[in-house]
């Protein structure tokens, strides 16, 4: 993909890449362990912890009570004592419970004591979108974590990057919130067999273009790619797609350089729009690449509503490739015109588009596990 050297290895799925990252991290460093609700159960967090459990057993892969805040504090303490805990949340929605330990403690312990200690914890935060998960099981909370100094926020979109970034997170000395979108779990791609890390804070250009930049994150990268392909085929619009890979630190240079070239920006995110991650990318560019901008900056993100479960409402609720297409069209064809709010986009039109591009990714309706 893009600037990364494309390894020629076998293809594996996103969830398998996570699994592999776990196993190899644990092989390389005996201080690494995994904890969380269900990590040792027969389903092993959508399969991602099964292999590690099989290999390293209950001592290094263990279940916890349902007590998110305390178990986070426990991970912090273990980290202070030299361990490298990986904590897993099957839904990031449950992490509201542990905001105190994450934000008042993990995030602050290093700086608050003048740099005396480090807290190397990795917190896997899964976004559960799909099959009517609804308001408390499908949130995408990266913006909250990105706002709090002292936390890194990583959000990979491909099997290749998820493995390299997870290994880097586990190896690094900072607390990392590692956000995984469940819809990516079945996506396959080339992944080197051996251990490797990717630098946290570096994004990647995944498709070159000159007319507009789409800066995207996680699952939205795939929507962006679909949109780019369609825009090229249909209207000859050349979109550059950036996979941000991490929100904190953010690869400012990559974004700014791209916008300096294209003069136009659409930001695509999986979270809510207002006060969301997309706002930061927009504000960055409005501050530091303003003079290159030829059109308003568009954001494609969730409307400011909690997620409904009904299938009809879900379809309207979630933006997709079509919303990115229409956002790009607006700024490329007639810069400066008011954008239509996402949720006003018509369901019918959307469905047609989704059928059209469904071959571009292995996406299919999620039917469980839940």
């Amino acid at each position, binding site marked *: 993909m893009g600037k990364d050297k494309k390894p020629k290895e076998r293809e594996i799925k996103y969830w398998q890449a996570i699994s592999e990252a776990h196993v190899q991290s644990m092989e390389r460093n005996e201080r690494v362990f995994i904890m969380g609700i269900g990590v040792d159960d027969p389903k092993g967090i959508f399969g991602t912890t099964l292999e590690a459990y099989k290999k390293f057993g209950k001592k290094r892969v263990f279940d916890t*009570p*349902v007590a998110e805040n305390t178990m986070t504090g426990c991970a912090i303490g273990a980290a202070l004592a030299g361990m490298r805990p990986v904590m897993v949340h099957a839904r990031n929605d449950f992490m509201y419970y542990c905001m105190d330990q994450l934000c008042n403690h993990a995030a602050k312990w290093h700086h608050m004591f003048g740099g005396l200690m480090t807290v190397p914890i990795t917190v896997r935060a899964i976004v559960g979108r799909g099959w*009517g*998960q*609804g308001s408390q099981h499908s949130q995408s909370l990266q913006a909250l974590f990105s706002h709090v100094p002292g936390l890194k926020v990583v959000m990979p979109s491909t099997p290749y990057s998820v493995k390299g970034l997870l290994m880097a997170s586990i190896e690094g000395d900072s607390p990392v919130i590692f956000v995984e979108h469940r819809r990516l779990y079945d996506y396959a791609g080339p992944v080197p067999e051996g251990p490797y890390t990717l630098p946290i804070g570096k994004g990647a250009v995944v498709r070159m273009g000159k007319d507009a930049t789409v800066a995207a994150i996680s699952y939205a990268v795939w929507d962006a790619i679909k949109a780019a392909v369609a825009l090229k085929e249909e209207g000859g619009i050349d979109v550059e797609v950036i996979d941000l890979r991490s929100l904190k630190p953010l690869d400012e240079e990559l974004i700014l350089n791209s916008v300096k070239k294209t003069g136009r920006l659409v930001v695509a995110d999986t979270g809510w729009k207002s006060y969301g991650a997309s706002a930061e990318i927009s504000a960055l560019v409005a501050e530091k690449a303003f003079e290159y901008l030829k059109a308003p900056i568009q954001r494609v993100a969730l409307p400011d*509503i909690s997620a409904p479960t*009904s299938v*009809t*409402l879900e379809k309207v609720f979630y933006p997709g490739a079509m919303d990115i297409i229409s956002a790009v069209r607006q700024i490329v064809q007639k810069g400066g015109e008011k954008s239509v709010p996402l949720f006003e986009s018509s369901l019918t039109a959307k469905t047609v588009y989704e059928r059209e591009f469904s071959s571009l990714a292995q996406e299919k309706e999620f039917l469980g596990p839940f």
Partner: protein
Amino acid sequence: MKKKDPSLKSIPANVLRDMYYMIVKIRKEGERIAELYPEQEMRCPIHLSIGQEAVAVGVCANLRKDDYVFSSHRCHAHYLAKGGELRRLVAELYGKKTGCAGGVGGSMHLAAPEVGFMGASSIVAGTIPIAMGTALASVMQGSDRVSVTFFGDAAVEEGTFHETLNFASLKSLPVIFVCENNLYATHSHLLARQPTNNIFERGESHRVPGVCVDGNDLLAIYQAAKEAVDRCRRGQGPFLIECKTYRWREHVGPYYDYDLGYRSKEELEKWMARCPVSIYEKVLLENGILSRKDVSTIAKEVGEKMEEAVRFAKESPFPDEAELLKDVY
């Protein structure tokens, strides 16, 4: 349990019969939903209470319509037992506009405030403090309403459970904590999460009395709840009831799951042999409260109601797009 139960005397016959009707209805709902679910028209995660129905029925039979009830992800039984409409439940599962939450909430977020079923949260332990808040309001308003929250054995692991016991005890609030201890949280055995299986004792150091009852024995639950409700109405403060019971189906979804390996078929069968519906039916039959004929009449009626509800749900319209924005501020 199969002997004549002295407690039967103290319970009016119509209450006994109503409870039977309700437990049969809840069982039917669970089984029919399990049958229909593989059609993939109910597009939300569904947690069935099959095997645990007695708890909802025994507790709610002691409540008035204006008492408050809250629940968790596994909430169908509690919604129905408190008087929520069956067809609006089923419509909600199908994501329809006529659902009890307009198709927005889904299986884990049923509500029927018109009968005091104030909602369910899919966040473990989420409604424990909220239920206490309604109890605080009752006291402030000088009413003798009682609040009940139903939750699973994992919910006691969340700190909010203890925080709530502390405050409820401090202020003597009329709230009853009903734990359905089905031994598992998802695939995790209780003893993998808690040092010992003694949930009913967890209130002691907060001065919240607790009892442990057979969660498959409707009458035992009814009696325990009655005592707790009476205490609450008299202003004597909160109470904790642990009901030992068992979930027959998988944690989420319609199937059996002993093949997964986290629990055995033997364990399941042991519990199925102690089916809460059969146990109760037998007591009523033996004591002449119900006849065989009543049983089949009720079965038939409940079956028809269920089919009617499914029809209603399937035929109801989906919410339209504007709905999504309707309740936003």
